[in-house]
């Protein structure tokens, strides 16, 4: 299903209820009534094309926005990506930690296994945090600066130097290790969990891990498919304007 802005948001959620947390990231909450996506976005002061693009990207992994790609600002995109980061760190991760605790108590698992899995997830969380920090402290500020320069908005002296010394190609998604750790955790639970007889708490945990994985993949895809091409286009324009600058 291709989500269209004239559809009722309630119908969209009937088709795909996993969109609810994504919708929440925009400050929109359940109780949609019969309002269309356009109406709801107007009420919340949101860019409707951007909202629909994000919903489609999340709903259908094969969706790839072509026309809309250049219509919304990079600032809007980064604002969304940061909101997603918050929801990973403040909602998903604590929720999974609780489910791990629940599993170690109810299964029950021996002390060593419990400790191993708990530590493994802690380690994973630290790595995810580090990755997010790097994006927010290095990459996003650079991209925002680039957009300002491209729109001929004033930037301070040191900033233009920064642009000459950085390039988005230096950042080609090194999401990999974070992805692999999450996969390993799932596989350890599915294949190697020793001698327990109560699958329900493990299943609850697995479901959340699969959901986090989907969310993270989606996030990486939005970065790779939308953010990076936009940034590369801006870098190219800038270099053409200023051929004396470093390549």
């Amino acid at each position, binding site marked *: 299903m291709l989500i269209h802005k004239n559809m009722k948001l309630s119908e969209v959620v009937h088709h795909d209820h996993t969109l609810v947390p994504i919708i929440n990231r925009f400050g929109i909450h359940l109780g949609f009534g019969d309002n269309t996506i356009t109406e709801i976005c107007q009420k919340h002061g949101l860019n409707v094309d951007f909202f629909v693009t994000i919903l489609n990207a999340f709903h259908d992994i094969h969706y*790839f926005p072509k026309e809309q790609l250049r219509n919304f600002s990079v600032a809007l995109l980064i604002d969304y990506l940061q909101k997603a980061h918050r929801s990973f760190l403040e909602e998903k991760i604590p929720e999974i930690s609780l489910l791990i605790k629940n599993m170690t108590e109810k299964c029950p698992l021996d002390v*060593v296994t419990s400790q*191993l899995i708990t530590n493994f997830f802690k380690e994973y969380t630290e790595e995810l945090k580090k990755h997010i920090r790097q994006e927010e402290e290095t990459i996003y500020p650079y991209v925002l600066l680039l957009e300002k320069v491209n729109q001929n908005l004033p930037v301070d002296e040191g900033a233009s130097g920064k642009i000459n010394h950085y390039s988005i190609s230096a950042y080609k998604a090194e999401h990999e290790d974070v992805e*692999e750790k999450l996969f*390993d955790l799932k596989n*350890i639970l599915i294949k*190697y969990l020793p001698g327990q007889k109560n699958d329900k708490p493990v299943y609850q945990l697995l479901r959340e891990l699969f959901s986090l994985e989907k969310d993270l993949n989606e996030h990486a895809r939005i970065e790779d498919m939308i953010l990076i091409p936009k940034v590369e286009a801006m870098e190219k324009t800038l270099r053409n304007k200023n051929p004396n600058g470093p390549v």
Partner: protein
Amino acid sequence: MKNVVVIEKYYLLQAGIQALVQEIPGLFLSKSWLGDEPHLTEIILKHKPDLILVNPFSLSGENISLPGKFRSSRNTKVLALLHNKDKSQSISGFDDLLFYEEDRFILEQKIRRQAGNVQNPGTNHQELSPREITILRWIVKGLTHQEIADKLFLSIHTVNTHRKNINKKLGIKTVSGLSVYAIMNHLIPMEELAEK
């Protein structure tokens, strides 16, 4: 499981190929593309496909050179998706040709044959060998592949191959994940884990 990726511009054809691949046991449909995505070769390399089913006429721009990049690779077989009318053009460099006009069972047979040709050691046999267990122990104790090679009088290349087979057999890639496995299976006591 053999990893399959599909490149086909037209949605209906792509959906049909995907359905066929999903019907064949032992194959896993990893992802599909239209053929015009930027940096497609690099993206596909990351997926480490065993089989690539590609309509060469769907490829545009830099992606045109994509099938060539995988030519004569032992680990990846490339099959062209074509119409009968394309037979007249010189199509070369593919491990086999699939025609849209062909019967389902012929297509399935061709795909299975190529899947069987992919060199993929150790995937059906999950038990680690004694050598692999030794290497796994050193890995989770925090030794580098070079250090392990020196200790066991092996080349680093051999250690790398063992590591790849361990990852494949267990379905665990990271050192942290391997550590959890090793302790849970009493291959190593907790105290001997590498300091983080």
